[in-house]
């Protein structure tokens, strides 16, 4: 088990975010949640995350715009979690700097396994 990682979950639906929190915490990591771009910027500046799980459609804009400022704030790895399961969206996320793109809902077990992998890589 690597050191505990800090995972920032950027997700505007609180019922989805609470499920993600349970999953990531059950993998032994620390979780911060943010419901908007503004929230995420604030959270990352005071406490940068090792891994950011990024929803694409946020109330104040496209989640991908967060990658640059969050990286500058010290966040290391970005994973897109999207409702769009098309190749064009995937390509767009990878081009913006995401290390991986997953389509929601990610099966619970798979998410736990992946978080462990990312935490180790980040």
């Amino acid at each position: 088990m690597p050191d505990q990682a800090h995972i920032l979950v950027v997700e505007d639906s609180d019922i989805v975010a609470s499920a993600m929190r349970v999953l990531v915490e059950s993998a032994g990591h620390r979780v911060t949640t943010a419901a908007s771009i503004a929230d995420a910027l604030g959270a990352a500046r005071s406490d940068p995350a090792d891994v950011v799980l990024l929803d694409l459609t946020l109330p104040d804009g496209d989640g991908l715009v967060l990658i640059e400022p969050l990286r500058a704030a010290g966040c290391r790895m970005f994973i897109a979690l999207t409702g769009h399961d098309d190749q064009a969206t995937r390509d767009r996320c990878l081009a913006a700097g995401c290390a991986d793109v997953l389509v929601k809902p990610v099966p619970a077990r798979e998410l736990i396994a992946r978080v462990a992998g990312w935490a180790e890589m980040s």
Partner: protein
Amino acid sequence: MSRTEIADEARRSPVSGDDPRLAALESQLKEAIVEIAELRARDALKTQFLANISHDLRTPLTAVITHAEILRDGILGDLSPRQMESVRGIISGGRQLLNQVGEILTYARGAANQLALVPTRFAIREVLEQVSGINEPLIKKKHLALSIEVVGDVPPLTADREKITHIIGNLLGNAIDFTPNGGRVWLRAERYAQRPDDTLCVEVGDTGVGIAPEHHDLIFREFAQVDATPSRPHHGTGLGLTIARKLVELHGGRIWVESELGRGSRFFFTVPLEQAAD
């Protein structure tokens, strides 16, 4: 005078010059044009609504499924066997709903011309095997015999792999749905026998209930089902073939069926081996 009466009247004695009937016709025509434009706009709005609502439905469904999987996987503690059964019910119902919502979303995007091709190069056999793998549990459950055949020398295809997978998935899903237990279903790909020979032809066939010739066009229309009564044995959105046709046509191909009632069905579609990159 109604619109048809005016038109009939006009046919009987052609209007000319400052005939007052001409003015009436002109204004009727203008009204009709405005009405058509309004209907088109309303139709586009409804399609957009369908796309938005089906996309938005994914979020609460994601919450339902993920929370239920947390329970199923024992992350919050062990469940009794009966609790487990309930939770599994929630998950499989949620996943079914998610699939149907996904189909409606694809349909609405197609109708609004919001689907773009992302071509890559791949072997058609891989897709045939992938789709049959996904359907294996159902095929086993119904004791169907499935065969996969790639005839002769088929070069790799440049197309939108996801969409080709979707087309074959919908066709095979139907073949399984409409074939009684113990029947045969097959997937077959070959270079199209007719010109142009730079075209691939894929067949999805079954020995099932078949389709009467008078329904061969109908089934490709949106929401159309041969048996649309609420008590029908098969449930679904009636969008599977509409989506398949849309995705085939996006590739510049054609889709059709050869079938008779009670004698099984053979669905065919063609796609060019190369997609012009855009």
